[in-house]
């Protein structure tokens, strides 16, 4: 990308202008995400930088909105902060309950999506797979079809089969409808990432394993699984994030008690936006940085395992 020595003045100007333009576009990409972080420590209930904040005056900053996340919904938020206070927060804080729901729904939908998606990706990447293209198109479609259409369809479907009343031995399965829907939405990501790791997979490895007397199950766990594991984990993380961030389906088919973090945020933004939303947003940004790092490390490991890059 460096300028050649013979470049004339105009080319030099253009080159630096181009770098500045790229810098501005990167700023456009990243600034909106970073701007919420300092604002979430605002001592005032405003959504903009106060003078104190700009002067880096410590009194302009506070943790009050993070504290509000814990106390909002508690029975007695003003009690002394001891064991009883934390027990109250754990049981009644709206945001803590939303987090619990989000994690439970995310965990089970990821489990379903990853398990089914990995096996399907194994089948799809075999050269013998019949109707490969059509089936792939169907399996990826939940990512393409607008979420409002999926949610509308599920709303009618779930109410016609009465999924809210389904039970096993008298135990009503909680979150069932939302978990199944989120699994569906996560599946395309698992398929895409796992088939990507299977591209260039050396099928002679499995044949070699079979040759040495391994049965298909052993071959899968000892030969294929270690090689595709990075892809499976990234796919699973994608599926989890999809569920963790999904609000429309939850709004349409979730029960009133099935509050999740995005739903709580959605309500907060629509009704009266409070800076507490910004502290949630900050926490979510930190989580996404962690996830992105994990996925990048996994991708590099996968490429190294498959000998695609030196490492």
């Amino acid at each position: 990308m460096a300028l050649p020595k013979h470049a004339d003045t105009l080319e030099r100007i253009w080159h630096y202008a181009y770098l500045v333009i790229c810098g501005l576009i990167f700023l456009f990409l990243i600034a909106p995400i970073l701007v919420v972080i300092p604002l979430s420590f605002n001592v005032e209930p405003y959504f903009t930088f106060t003078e104190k904040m700009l002067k880096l005056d410590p009194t302009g900053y506070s943790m009050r909105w993070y504290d509000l996340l814990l106390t909002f919904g508690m029975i007695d938020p003003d009690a002394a902060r001891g064991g009883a206070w934390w027990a109250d927060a754990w049981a009644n804080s709206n945001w803590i309950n939303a987090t619990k729901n989000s994690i439970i729904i995310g965990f089970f939908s990821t489990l379903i999506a990853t398990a089914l998606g990995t096996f399907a990706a194994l089948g799809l990447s075999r050269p013998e797979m019949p109707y490969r293209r059509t089936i792939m198109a169907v399996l990826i479609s939940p990512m393409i079809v607008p979420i409002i259409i999926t949610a509308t369809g599920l709303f009618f479907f779930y109410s016609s089969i009465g999924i809210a009343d389904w039970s096993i031995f008298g135990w009503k399965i909680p979150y069932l409808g939302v978990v199944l829907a989120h699994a569906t939405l996560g599946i395309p990501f698992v398929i895409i990432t796992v088939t990507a790791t299977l591209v260039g997979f050396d099928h002679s490895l499995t044949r070699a394993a079979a040759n040495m007397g391994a049965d298909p199950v052993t071959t899968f766990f000892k030969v294929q699984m270690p090689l595709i594991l990075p892809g499976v984990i990234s796919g699973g993380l994608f599926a989890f994030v999809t569920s963790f961030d999904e609000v429309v389906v939850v709004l349409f088919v979730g029960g009133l008690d099935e509050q999740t973090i995005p739903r709580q945020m959605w309500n907060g933004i629509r009704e009266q936006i409070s800076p507490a939303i910004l502290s949630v947003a900050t926490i979510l940004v930190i989580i996404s940085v962690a996830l992105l790092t994990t996925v990048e490390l996994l991708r590099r490991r996968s490429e190294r395992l498959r000998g695609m890059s030196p490492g």
Partner: protein
Amino acid sequence: MTDGLANQGASNSPGELLLTTVDGKPLKQALIHAQSRAKRRAFFLVMPLLLFILITFVAPIAQMLHRSVHNDGFIVTEDFGTGERTPIMVNLTQWFDENPPGSEIDESAYAALAADMVVLKEERAAGQAGTRINYEISGSRSLFTKTARNADKLAPPYKEAIIGVDPDWDNPELWTVMRSASSAYTATFYLAAIDMTRDANGNIEMVNENRQVYVKLFQRTLILSLVITFLTFLLAYPVAHLLATLPLRYSNLLMILVLLPFWTSLLVRTTSWMILLQSQGVINDAMVGLGVLDDENRIQMMYNQAGTVIAMTHILLPFMILPLYSVMRPINPSYVRAARSLGATSWTAFRRIYFPQTVPGIGAGALLVFILAVGYYITPALVGGADGQLISNLIAFHMQKSLNWSLAAALAALLLGGILILYWLYDRLIGIDNLKLG
């Protein structure tokens, strides 16, 4: 058995040497066997997921499509407790069957209506039947409940009696709507979704100018999506080019700036744009602070189309950068160098040599961004205000507020049809297998 097969194979191709496997099967057949077994095995791996998707995704959407042409709210009532279905409006439906469209609404029609009103009162279904008509003529729900309340007092001549309860019954349009509602399968909702209706004689016509909303909204969705696609292209091209030409060490680092928004919650990104764009928000405050703007003349950047376009361009930008990058990375720089050494200016070298090689990436990114933009819901709902709403928002409105579910389903079906055509095109041109996520 094996012998028989072997003989058959031999007789089919006399003179050729027949290759057999160890157990005596002809090689060709053994191969076909093995291949079909491999096929079955591959298919069995995919089948659980395929079934799962068919049940949890395809079936619900198929059911929704059915609802867009089927609405029996006017002719059947369902008991919520027992699920028992009772026909209503039987007499009127029969009258419609016997009298073609355009017939005079005579005493026999009103008599049928009066008889049905008695049933509506018994079944407590007047509200439901009225709601079905209310989708097309507002005020009909109360017309039905009011008339059903007085059903027992109605006496011949029914025409005067019913019009005496409410003169609205003398509206020919009402009778046209009731006629179309008396059959469960109807194209009414699709007509409504493209701003059309039937006149008293059953002919299709456009609705009044001031009631035309949906065609305009489809147009707006298309235009805004095109604008957003174009903007993402403008912003993504230089960045993708920079990433593709930098050494991997640096480009991997910069790539994080592209992937981080991709991994960040959609709601977080939308919230960020809200606090940036608000009239008391960061951008306006900064401009007032710098003296660019007066405090009174803050720019309204949110709750209008500008808000939708800015926020969605940001959110969809990675979907344009990634396909462009994966096409630009393998482009050999010596082509451009060769062009330059043959005397091309840098602009000509770019236009004639570099740009044509990136067209597949532009196509992939543009189609993907456009497909995603057309169906967007959350961002326009939060930052779009009244005139930044897209078609998805109207579907949500009919699902949650107006409760005209069949119209919502018809709008969704039209949107889905458009998306599926684009998706098919994407698969044909680019191939879904080439979809990459980071």
